[in-house]
Structures are given as structure tokens and as C-alpha cells.
């Protein structure tokens, strides 16, 4: 069980290392504009094949690269309804504060829970291997966070129910 997550993260890390070769590329259609080509999706010559890496039916990661930007979308494991709600709320909380993260995208891509958008400017300011470390660490920590949240919700619920039902004894 622990082995598959290690393989999954290694695969994503290797793919990101290969795919994150970004350079500045001014917009071809509009003068003086500089847009992330992966978001525009206009010119097939500027975009590479998107790669979908699935760990199982529930978890997957979509990596789309272009000449000046890379978009990484993830779907996290959600075993039951409670985890579903917790994941949605938690990731929405993070996405709303995308400014602080710099590489986070405000809205996840359709069909996924959270998306990152890394441009050539980010690669110039920050170390490429550190960016990849961040993404992989994020994937590891998300699972732990959601498990912790679920645990605390269940504990709180149990305490509240015990206290409430004491009055009927």
C-alpha cells in the first residue's frame, strides 16, 4: 500500500522534471501580450501531449505542458461522503488564497479537485527542483490533512453526542 504511493509520486516527479522546461514566449496573436499557452490552447505547435497518471480509479494527476507554462491538476482520494465534503472545503479554502501560493490556480480544471499553473516566470524566480518538491510534498500532505480533519470531525461529533445524550440517562 505504501509502496504504490511512493511509485506514483516518483512517476509524477520524473514526469514533471522532464516536462518543466519552460521559456519565455510572447503571444503570437496579440502584440506585446504574454500569456500562458497551456491555458489558451490555440496553437497545437506550442502544446505537448497531455499526460494522465492514475494511481487507481479515484486518484489521478493530469499534466499538461506548453512552451511557457505547465498545468498540473489533481484529483485526491475521497473514500466516503465525509471525506468528499472535507476535501472540497479544504481545497476551496486553498484555491481562494491562490495569490499567496503563486503557483496555484484559482479554479481547478473540470473533473479535478485542484490545479497548479507554473509559468516560465516562476521558474526564473524559483528553483525548478524546489517547485517540483513542493508539488510532490503537497500531494503527500493533502492525504494526511484530510485524514486528520476527518478524525477531528469524528472525535468532536462523538464528544458532542456523549454530552448531549448524558442528560437522558
Amino acid at each position, binding site marked *: 500500500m505504501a509502496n504504490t504511493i511512493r*511509485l506514483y509520486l516518483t512517476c509524477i516527479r520524473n514526469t514533471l*522534471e*522532464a516536462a518543466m522546461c519552460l521559456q519565455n514566449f510572447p503571444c503570437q496573436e496579440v502584440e506585446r501580450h504574454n500569456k500562458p499557452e497551456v491555458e489558451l490552447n490555440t496553437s497545437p505547435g506550442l502544446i505537448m501531449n497531455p499526460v494522465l497518471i*492514475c494511481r*487507481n480509479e479515484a486518484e489521478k494527476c493530469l499534466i499538461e505542458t506548453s512552451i511557457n507554462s505547465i498545468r498540473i491538476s489533481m484529483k485526491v482520494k475521497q473514500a466516503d461522503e465525509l471525506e468528499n465534503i472535507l476535501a472540497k472545503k479544504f481545497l476551496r479554502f486553498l484555491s481562494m488564497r491562490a495569490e499567496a501560493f503563486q503557483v496555484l490556480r484559482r479554479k481547478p480544471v473540470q473533473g479535478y479537485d485542484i490545479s497548479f499553473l507554473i509559468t516560465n516566470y516562476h521558474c526564473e524566480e524559483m528553483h525548478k527542483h524546489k517547485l517540483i518538491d513542493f508539488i510532490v510534498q503537497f500531494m503527500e500532505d493533502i492525504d494526511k490533512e484530510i485524514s486528520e480533519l476527518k478524525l477531528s470531525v469524528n472525535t468532536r461529533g462523538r464528544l458532542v453526542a456523549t454530552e448531549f445524550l448524558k442528560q437522558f440517562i
Partner: protein
Amino acid sequence: MAAEEEYLEAEENLEAIITRIEHKSRKIETLLKQSKPVDALKTALEGSALKTRDERCKSANWIVVHRAVMAIKDVDGMISSLDPEYYDILMKYLYRGLATGDRPTCDQCLRIHEKLTEKAGLGCILRSLSDTVNTV
């Protein structure tokens, strides 16, 4: 004019490609019965029609390669005995396998992906990402 000729040529070749894939499939079944999974994978990968755009040929070839890949038990041995010219094709098929989402396929593909990246390097991954002419 040239485009039409190309199209007609492609039509004929499709039937030839599908027949070839069926031949391969039978050969692979025999090799697997003889417990030679590495040879089966080599047979599956060679002669893959990468330039064709027809979905049926690609799916048929994928099914054959998938069968050979799932039968591999010794990943290290397989990679050391595979010719370097097949690394790129295998990498493309691995990514196709990872996209399926089926748990045993993904497990196997992740295992092979790690070892293949160690052997073939990041260039192999980059070629599979950027190659739009030879697709799987």
C-alpha cells in the same frame, strides 16, 4: 490530390496493420505459454504502426502490448534485456496504461515506469510528451 492518395494508401494499410496485429497476438500467446514474457513484450513492441492515425489499429495494438506488459514479473531483467530502440515506444505505451485508471494496470505501469526512467533517462519521457507524429 496528394492528400487523397495518402488517404487511399492508408486505407489499404489499415487492413494489413490489423492482420499483422492479429498475427502478433497469436505469437505472443504462444510465447507467454512458454513463459517467455520478455520475448512476448519485444514482439508486441516491434512493428507497432506509430504513424497511423486510425483509432482501431492503435487500440488493437494497445490490447496486445497490455497483455504482454501485465505478464511481466521481473521488471529489472526485462529492461536490461530490452533493446534501447524500444524504450521510447514502451514509455508511450506506459503512459497510455497509466491513463486507463485500472488498478492492476496502473500498478504494473508505475513499477515499469520507475525502472525505465532510471535506465532511459528523462529524455525518454520528454520524447513521449513532445512526439505528435508517432503516437500510440
